[in-house]
């Protein structure tokens, strides 16, 4: 009975731990998402900033400014506004194209996202104040995603 080989013993150890401290069910999917996001982020082509308005200071301390980015044939116009500590980004894609826009604050995936309307418009509200980038994911999967360089709210 004591003929258990080293391999057999280690197999018992594996089985026992797999049963008593199993991998949490959500873990693989969560790690796949995190790795895929980091991966796609690395290869992202950046849009080029071609225009930037001077900052407009409005009444009651609100501020807004506009940015214009270009990538290939796609133009992206952004109006960034902060009013009473609340942020709002209005965007306009020319020519209009179905895509999902995601805000990437720093390295973390975040839930701020919007789908571009038929007229090419989208809006993101209540983004955290600070530095962020927008990631543009065309629904046409043959088109790779691209992103704006970092800008500040």
């Amino acid at each position, binding site marked *: 009975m*004591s003929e258990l080989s080293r391999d057999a013993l280690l197999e*018992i*150890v594996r089985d026992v*731990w797999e049963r008593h401290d199993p*991998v*949490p069910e959500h873990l693989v999917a969560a790690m796949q998402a*995190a790795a895929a996001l980091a991966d796609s982020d690395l290869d992202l082509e950046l849009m080029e900033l071609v225009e930037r308005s001077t900052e407009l200071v409005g009444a009651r301390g609100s501020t807004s400014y506009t940015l214009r980015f270009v990538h290939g044939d796609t133009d992206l116009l952004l109006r960034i506004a902060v009013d009473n500590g609340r942020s709002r980004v209005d965007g306009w894609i020319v020519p209009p194209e179905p895509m999902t826009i995601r805000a990437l604050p720093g390295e973390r995936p975040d839930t701020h996202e919007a789908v571009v309307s038929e007229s090419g418009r989208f809006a993101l509200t209540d983004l955290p104040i600070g530095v962020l980038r927008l990631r543009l994911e065309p629904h046409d999967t043959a088109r790779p995603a691209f992103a704006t360089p970092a800008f500040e709210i």
Partner: protein
Amino acid sequence: MPSRQTGVEPDEPPARTNEPWAQATAAFNRWVAGDPAGLDDLVAVMTPVLWHVVRAYRLSETAAEDVIQNTWLALVRRRSAILDPVAVGGWLTTTARREAWRTSGSTAATPVEDDDLALALPRQGSAEDAVVQHDEGDRLWAAVDGLPERCRRLLRVVAFENRPDYRELATELGMPVGSIGPTRGRCLAKLRVALIEAGGI
């Protein structure tokens, strides 16, 4: 491959643990060749291995998940540093182990104690255990769980890793490098005895 310091036993990896390593290498190669599904597969194959290696360091579930996520982010960002695709599994477990060890040293052990207590609970009580543990799984668990902490950790890491780096393991366990092989042998012997005593085999 580092040469074996001990010569106690030939270090052929157990057949079953070879599978994830070969799958990891294949998935890694597909990913590097431009197939994003390769990364998905690599994560699916290796995340369970990383879980068991990292949890051997008495980290809470949340801390363990952070360590594993950081390991994946490190892989994505430094994939060009992995010159030998065959080594990707070892690179992942080594990276995760380093971070787990660092984390386990820097965080208070309190939340982890709870985990360990919870894990240890089933083996408490004694006389009735023999009767209650009619299930073979319970007997096997009691034998593994009853090992000294150092053996529990060492065997869990060795069981899930293909070829752990003895030098680093020695540092983490506070043991001389040359004693890992013999210690592993003693831990396996203890387990063998515990299994026989428990009637688990």
